[in-house]
């Protein structure tokens, strides 16, 4: 087993910013919501691609 672990770090290569989760709860919540929404859209696209292959 390794050490406890590190907080999630978000690198936004489009905006040129980096954010380490855990220090700013308000910003954490907003960025996490954006990440989840982006993940949902990506998953929907992957599912659409899978349907096209059938």
């Amino acid at each position, binding site marked *: 087993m*390794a*050490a406890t672990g*590190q907080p*999630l770090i978000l*690198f936004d290569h489009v905006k040129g910013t980096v954010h380490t989760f855990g220090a700013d709860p308000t910003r954490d919540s907003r960025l996490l919501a954006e*990440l989840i929404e982006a*993940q949902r859209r990506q998953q929907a*696209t992957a599912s*659409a691609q899978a349907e096209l292959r059938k």
Partner: protein
Amino acid sequence: MRVGWATLCRYAEVNDGLATMVGAGLDTYFVPGFPETIQVVVVFQLFGTQQEMADEHELVFRIHDPAMNAAESPSVTFVGEPNPLALPGWEASTILVTAHVLPASAEGAYGIEIVVDGDSQNTVPFSVRGLASGDES
């Protein structure tokens, strides 16, 4: 410090030093069209001496696009934790979960390079494809 392994996945979290991942090994992202923004989650395990773990380190990523251009991210510093259970001679390790919002300007092969303290440690390849552009993933 060195990267022992690195992988892409859809979701990851670390509890008590152990990673739980969903979709580990992911290597292809489909997008409706170009240009598009994609989200990539990179998980990797860093190994080092107990002393190295206690020191501050700099982490940077370089994104390689299909045109072989490389763009460097802003840097962030982190401090690991010595392994309380390490036996003499063992390395300590820590698992990092990083999320990346990336511009995908064209279909093709990309890479995300992990740079720790100025040393390139690992590059994880992936591809970005337009919807219905390929039949394998």
